[in-house]
């Protein structure tokens, strides 16, 4: 029981797990359960391993709490204390609710990242199995190096692309009837975020009112009751905290409209499509935009239309807002969407360009631009499915290839056979024979033989060994030059890692190979590499000793 010293935050008795009574403990970093009468935990999860918790709906006979782990496994706890089952569950739920996000943030990111890397890279995965699972080095050591290399490239993708907002997110909130004349809305954090991003005014209200004036639940209840959410509802009463939001939005809209009445952006503006101001016509009556005598139905219809336009505009704005200023959401609420963009319209050059675009017939002009090469796909299915991950390969850049081709071409062009110094044909043929596989000079080499001599699973194993050894050696060699205490420590540790590798991995393999194929020495090169590393370390150590003396 390593956890005796842990701080226990909550203890709940009479909690069943797998039909066994027991006690649930919530501790600082993990949740654990032990069967009654035994002093060990049969279930123990670190909070950082937990993806989410689920609870049984109200009114169900069994009061349960389920924990879903990142691995996909789950444990279900059944609260069976007759008198306080519900309160117990609520207590556990609430505590978890507070605790989980804390761990989630840091753990999740890393874990996901690692998981992703392992999934995307089978070689790395194999390496992980070889080194970590078989406990040659610890997981931290394995990742310590990995993450630092990946982090640099991740800085680019770190500013990950924002996910846009689905235009139908409000529609996704499907209300469910709870059987007794009420509606239940299920809100996920995603939906809430969508609402906030689309309607910054709501977020502002949320900030102002929750939690001091309203609980979160009350806030959302009011939100769904408000006309703000129901687009066809006409505003009722000033009690509604969202009426202000609507007003604010409206104000944003109106200022925009005002702006529009003054800006004539030209090509795409319908206002100017009228051609002439109305009063020029004989008897042109001023266009009556709003008809005061519309029926309620018509009013609500046009309200829907307005809301749709507004909603779409807000969503569009939410997208561009993110791009412009990611950390400046709250302050932008008043100016909803970029007035700055509109000011561009004041600039005549844009109009000019637009006009130019509108009148230009590109296909009537000769193309002046550089000739581009059309993409010619030989295997279009490969293009469609993306590259299949292969074993790691050494790639030569195309520039290298081009360079070498020109080089060779150049040499070939200048090649002049020196006919005075050629061998006789018999000498040539004997030389070729000697250099061919199986020839006199080629007998010592194993390369040509290995694929014939050794079965493929051994080959595969050898390959893994090579990769693992390579990885360890890479760690080792990156320690040089050793210029910090950390590196000193690491290089020594790496040596022991290498030795351990040699002992636990290489040796058994060698023995296995020897048992089967006595003659072939296929691990010679690996040993050589390890030996070189030892030698280097040894040299470094003796030099250091000398210096110390």
């Amino acid at each position, binding site marked *: 029981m390593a956890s005796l010293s842990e701080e226990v935050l909550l203890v709940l008795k009479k909690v069943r797990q797998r039909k066994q009574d027991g006690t649930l403990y919530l501790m600082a970093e993990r949740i654990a359960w032990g069967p009654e009468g035994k002093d060990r935990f049969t279930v123990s999860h670190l909070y950082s391993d937990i993806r989410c918790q689920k609870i049984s709906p109200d009114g169900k006979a069994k009061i349960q709490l389920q924990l879903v782990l990142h691995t996909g496994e789950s444990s279900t706890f059944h609260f069976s204390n007759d008198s306080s089952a519900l309160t117990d569950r609520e207590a556990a739920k609430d505590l978890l609710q507070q605790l989980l996000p804390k761990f989630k943030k840091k753990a999740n990111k890393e874990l996901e990242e690692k998981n992703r890397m392992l999934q995307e890279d089978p070689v790395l995965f194999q390496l992980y199995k070889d080194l970590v699972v078989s406990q040659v080095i610890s997981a931290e050591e394995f990742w310590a190096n990995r993450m630092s290399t990946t982090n640099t490239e991740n800085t680019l993708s770190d500013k990950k692309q924002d996910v*846009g907002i*689905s*235009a*139908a997110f*409000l*529609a996704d909130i499907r209300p469910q009837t709870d059987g007794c004349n009420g509606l239940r809305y299920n809100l996920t954090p995603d939906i809430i975020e969508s609402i906030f991003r689309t309607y910054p005014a709501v977020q502002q209200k949320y900030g102002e009112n929750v939690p001091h004036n309203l609980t979160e639940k009350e806030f959302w209840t009011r939100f769904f009751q408000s006309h703000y959410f129901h*687009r*066809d509802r006409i505003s009722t009463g000033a009690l509604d905290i969202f009426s202000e939001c609507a007003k604010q939005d409206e104000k944003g*809209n109106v200022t*925009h*409209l005002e702006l*529009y009445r003054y800006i004539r*952006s*030209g*090509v*795409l*503006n*319908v*206002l*100017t*499509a*009228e*051609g*002439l*101001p109305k*009063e*020029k*016509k*004989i*008897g*042109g*009556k001023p*266009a009556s*935009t*709003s008809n005061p*005598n519309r029926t309620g139905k*018509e009013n*609500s*219809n*046009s309200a*829907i*239309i*307005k809301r*749709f*336009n507004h909603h*779409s*505009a807000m*969503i*569009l704005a939410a997208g*561009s807002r993110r791009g412009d200023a990611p950390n400046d959401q709250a302050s932008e609420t008043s100016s909803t969407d970029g007035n700055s963009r509109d000011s561009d319209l004041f600039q005549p050059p844009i109009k000019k360009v637009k*006009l130019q675009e*509108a*009148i230009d*017939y*590109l*296909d*009537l*002009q*000769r193309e002046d631009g550089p000739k581009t090469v*059309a993409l010619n796909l030989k295997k279009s299915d490969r293009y469609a499915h993306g590259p299949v991950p292969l074993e790691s390969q050494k790639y030569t850049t195309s520039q290298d290839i081009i360079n070498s081709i020109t080089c060779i071409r150049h040499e070939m062009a200048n090649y002049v056979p020196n006919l005075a110094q050629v061998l006789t044909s018999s000498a040539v043929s004997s030389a070729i024979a000697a250099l061919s596989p199986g020839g006199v000079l080629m007998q010592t080499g194993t390369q040509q033989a290995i694929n014939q001599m050794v079965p493929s699973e051994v080959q595969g194993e050898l390959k893994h060994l090579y990769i693992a050894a390579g990885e360890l050696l890479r760690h080792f060699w990156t320690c040089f030059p050793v210029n910090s205490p950390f590196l000193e420590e690491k290089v020594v540790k790496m040596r022991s890692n290498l030795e351990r590798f040699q002992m636990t991995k290489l040796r058994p393999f060698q023995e296995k190979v020897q048992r089967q194929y006595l003659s072939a020495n296929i691990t010679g090169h690996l040993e050589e590499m390890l030996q070189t590393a030892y030698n280097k370390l040894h040299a470094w150590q003796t030099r250091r000793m000398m210096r110390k003396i």
Partner: protein
Amino acid sequence: MKLNIEGLLVYFPYDYIYPEQYSYMLELKRTLDAKGHGVLEMPSGTGKTISLLSLILAYQKAYPLEITKLIYCSRTVPEIEKVVEELRKLIEFHCKETGEANNFLALALSSRKNLCIHPEILHANIVVYSYHYLLDPKIADLVSKELTKKAVVVFDEAHNIDNVCIDSMSVNITRRTLDRCTSNVETLQTTIQRIKETDAAKLKEEYRRLVEGLKEANVARVTDVYLGNPVLPAEVLQEAVPGSIRTAEHFVGFLKRFLEYLKSRLRVHHVVQESAPQFLKDIFQKVCIDRKPLRFCAERLRSLLRTLEISDLTDFSAITLISNFATLVSTYSQGFTIIIEPFEDRTPSIANPVLHFSCMDPSIAIKPVFERFQSVIITSGTLSPLDIYPKILDFRPVTVASFTMTLARTCLCPLIVGRGNDQVALSSKFETREDFAVIRNYGNLLLEMSGVVPDGIVAFFTSYMYMENIVASWYEQGILENIQRNKLIFIETPDAAETSMALEKYQEACENGRGAILLSVARGKVSEGIDFVHHFGRAVIMFGVPYVYTQSRILKARLEYLRDQFQIRENDFLTFDAMRHAAQCVGRVIRGKTDYGLMIFADKRYARADKRGKLPRWIQEHISDGSLNLTVDETVQMSKHFLRQMAQPFRQEDQLGLSLLTIEQLESEEMLKKISQMAHQA
């Protein structure tokens, strides 16, 4: 590129040319040669404007005595700006090629800001302005009346020219108009009083002038200096202003009487419809106003305002309107009708009397133009059926031609959706307008298309009311929510500014890849003048046939008139009108040969020959027999197929020789033969 159009050297500012452009220029030149009028239809996006400008400019250069001026009329300010830009490009090219300095003077009149550069118009070679400057009698008088006879007048985007003509001659009088008139008259009265005290000689001088009559104007018209003013009929010019309204006070009194009469006419409780002679008879019986002074009303008021040296004419718009009405009603016994409605049809409880003095004959407004100018060209992307325009505008063209778009690939895909997946017939006709099955199927069509078509979709409804109802029931049925999963939705509203904003947002959404749907109304602001180039519109869906609201009395009167005077059957005209608007709507999506788009006609009535036959040829020829009565599913399948094909790269080489020609290809015997055939087909 330098072209040889039947012996005329034309500078064309591009390296290549479309075959139809050449053909268009050929027909245009023949029209000019014959000194006659022409009706030419060519799809938008095939460079109509540049062809027109190139040819007429070359013609002016070659025969400066035959044609001295080009008057180019377009409908909207953006259009005018485009034309000016093209002209600039052409002139630059001209100068570069010939090495001469520019000796063309072009002038654009777009808004009141730069109106009245009077002397300059006389010297400009090219004038670009709005229809109204030529057709609206009031403005035409100010701007265009001194334009030379030897001018070519071009009406671009002229598919709606009859309505512009009618609007320019029609007058609507409400209570508010009359109230403003009353205050106008009061101002006049006080001003006259003041002048009488200070400068009585001025008024006497005016009186003398009026006695001499409108001789000057008559001299001018006889000697053919001025463009005729339809409001100022020829007879008026030969007579002196009648004595009863010759002095200023008498005239003001006369106006007052006339106003009172109009006020009494507006106090009706039921709809009144009468002809101009009936109206004149009534006014004579009730307030003893004769026909003759009424006819001089407009001219008399103008003279008075001039004498009183009132500078700001806009304040007097109401009284000017009334005097114009007086002159018109007493001049034309035919072609006009008077309808007095005590309330609007939709709101019978609220009194809002309106006197419509409605012009039913578009030829009245445009007659002076046809009579005065040597060549008048009416052109647009959609003028089908071509024979109806000469009929309703009452002129005889020497050339009538429709050009199709030569295409290297079929880049437009007109489909007629007649049924839903449940085989319910789709139609916007009155009987099924409220039918939920139809509305649901329409919604399903839009939903399916929103999942298939990339970027922008524009949908048109037949009217605002219809759109509002459909949107509401789609909302209730949750269809809009599902559409929102695919695209953002923007909707046109009656408010121009709001629509502009929705439109801009729509374009933004298309631009950033999000994709959007614009719901709008045929005959609305979007359907005319807003282009949906490339990704801004990959599909247009026309929900229903956009018939005009037939219960309107004005329309009924017009239909009757058309039937009696021009032997055009009511249904023919209504269908023609509906189809030209439908064509305008769907035509928004194709703006050139590199563009592509779906045109979906969602109403089974489009399949009928009488409807289909009225679409422009360049759309009609792509409607196959297999796509006349599709279900929603079939439409989606065909759209997918079409869009996949269109998404393939399309290069200039693909077009070259087929729909795009080099000068060498153009001059080849074979091609010339093909092109001449093209024109003959029309």
